[in-house]
């Protein structure tokens, strides 16, 4: 797959003290919806800003849409919605779209056409002549998304697009994202709303403390942690557990919740049948058997905890001799 974003070793150090990015490698393929997750302060927005030349990296090699990072010409094919955007409140949504369209180099005729189309898509046509100052946060967010699409971009970068948006608005935004994907555009989503990402992303990456911890499709990342869970009515005796484990060779049975749950890391139902038989033979009452897939949230929390928790800001103060 052709890479729309292909960067390696992205580093950003602020004032030689704060190490926001510590050598990030990232590849985003054409036509996919890519989600970047991470706790607050992980460096997600910094990475996005580096890609869009808003921030100058300390070190970086790679390309965006085939152009070297920092090349402004590539930005005519990129749409961007910043996290805490503050579009001029004295402008109407129509004026905002036309202004940013012109700044992206879109000609007048196309601007007018795109403006009407996009306002329709984000359900803001009725408000097109009202000033942004009168809008709710969710409405401004919709206009922000429309603004990012004015130049008919190949790559759309959205930083927390559902921030402040109500559930209906979120659903609308999800639909817009899927529509963009259908149109063949690449969408780069930056969010910490995991359920949102899980629903639309083809691939995700987890960033913690300025480093990319995991990258891949949601299935790839969660498959290894999925399996069947056997729930019993009462706690199982140790010999019963041992018997069930022995019945399935090669898969470790993990005991959970005071010996009332037995988890086997396999997605093949046939493989856990001997364990069920062993339990039943020993008179164990089985309450339920179910397949449990690790959620993105589980994965995320695991990744964050592995790296010292998420509460701590990701931007680390550089120590003397620290590995950058």
């Amino acid at each position, binding site marked *: 797959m052709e890479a729309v974003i292909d960067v390696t070793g992205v580093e950003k150090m602020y004032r030689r003290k704060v190490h926001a990015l510590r050598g990030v490698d990232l590849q985003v393929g054409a036509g996919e919806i890519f989600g970047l997750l991470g706790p607050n302060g992980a460096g997600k927005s910094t990475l996005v800003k580096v890609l869009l030349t808003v921030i100058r990296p300390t070190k970086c090699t790679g390309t965006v849409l085939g152009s070297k990072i920092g090349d402004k010409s590539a930005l005519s094919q990129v749409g961007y919605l910043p996290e805490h955007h*503050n579009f001029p409140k004295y402008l109407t949504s129509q004026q905002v779209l036309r202004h940013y369209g*012109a700044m992206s180099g879109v000609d007048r005729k196309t601007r007018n056409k795109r403006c009407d189309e996009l306002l329709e898509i984000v359900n803001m046509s009725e408000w097109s002549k009202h000033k942004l100052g009168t809008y709710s946060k969710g409405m401004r967010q919709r206009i922000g998304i429309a603004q990012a699409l004015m130049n008919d971009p190949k790559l759309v970068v959205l930083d927390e697009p559902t921030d402040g948006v109500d559930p209906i608005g979120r659903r609308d935004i999800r639909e817009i994202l899927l529509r963009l994907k259908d149109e063949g555009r690449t969408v780069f989503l930056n969010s910490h709303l995991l359920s949102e990402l899980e629903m639309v992303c083809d691939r995700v990456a987890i960033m913690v403390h300025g480093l990319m911890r995991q990258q891949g499709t949601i299935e790839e990342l969660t498959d290894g942690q999925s399996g069947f869970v056997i729930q019993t009515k009462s706690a199982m005796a140790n010999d019963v557990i041992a018997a069930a484990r022995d019945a399935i060779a090669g898969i470790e049975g993990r005991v959970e919740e005071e010996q009332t749950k037995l988890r086997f890391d396999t997605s093949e139902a046939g493989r856990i049948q001997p364990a069920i038989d062993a339990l039943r033979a020993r008179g164990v009452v089985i309450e339920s058997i179910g397949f449990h897939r690790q959620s993105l949230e589980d994965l995320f929390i695991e990744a964050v905890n592995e790296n010292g928790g998420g509460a701590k800001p990701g931007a680390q103060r550089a120590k003397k001799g620290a590995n950058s």
Partner: protein
Amino acid sequence: MILRQTKAILVDAYRELNAKKLFWLTLGLNLFAVIIYASIGINERGFTVLFWTLEGLFNTSMMSKSAFYKFEFITWGVPMWLSWGTTALALISTAGIIPDMVSGGTIEPILSKPIGRVRLFLTKYLTGLGFVGVQVFVFSLGCFFVLGIRGGSWEFGLFLAVPIVLAFFSYLFAFCVFIGMMTRSTITALLLTIVFFLLIFVINIGEAVTISARESAAVQIEDAQEQVEAQERFANKRLEQFQEQGKAIPGRDGEPLPSNAIDSLEALNPTLSFAKKSLVKSQGKHDSWDVWATWISRTKFVLPKTGETISLLERNLMNNDELDGFIDMMENLGGEESNKQDPRVNERINAIYDGRTITWILGTSFAFEAFFLGLSTLVFVRRDF
């Protein structure tokens, strides 16, 4: 694409000013100033305000209507209204251009567009100047019609006010933009620019005072030197008389002086001693003022020449005859008060100011502007937002 983006930035700047009601407010105030300009005039009986005539010496026999309106433009329109009024309004209107642009949430979408930072920054800077240009042009256009219709002279030179006032404003605006860039605060940028403007004003006054005092002392030195020479001639004459008559030269206490006495001349002419003391005193005064004047001039060298820039209009709009006539008229009106200043001091001061070439005035001022603008651009280009 460049034109499209530039136009978008200009339109946005207009909308921003319009949203703050500043564009039309300032334009309205400029038109009001034109009305004031038009409402004052002279006729054969005296000075006129709207429909009333204040009869007096000041009438068309002293000065033609066209010359009056030109003088009014030069003495009130430019130094008072455009230099202070319009500049203050323009600073209030434009001080927020850069801080607003670099504020969080606003700058990111702009920087993510295919436009270089240097071009973006300089275009924003030029929109500020463009705003002032429009205001000054409207005022000049109004004054041009007033001068043409009421004064009977169509003076295209009046439009020189546009580039000259624009240059004057650009010095301050470059400083304002620099402060705005560094602090990201409109209020701080505005206040510090006003303080800077006042500082330049004070330095200009300081320079005028010290140069005036120094040149006054220089004239006093000349006078004292002449006095010393005259008294020495007189004393020498008396000495010769004493020597011809073979008389001993009497000392101050009446006793004859010894042959090697050095103050024989002063003994023969006590006024010489006073003249010499006066010379020494004037020299001391001159040296003291010269130190101050030199320091102020050095300080001023690196600062923009606001006063001199505005004076360029006077130099270009009025010929020497008109200027002389105007000075005579002011002296006549001023009566005895204005005659107190020694004309030689005035000549010397004028020679100093006239010696400042346009290249020096604009060159050093634009160097100041270029320095601050360059610094601001560099900060903008290198800053992470």
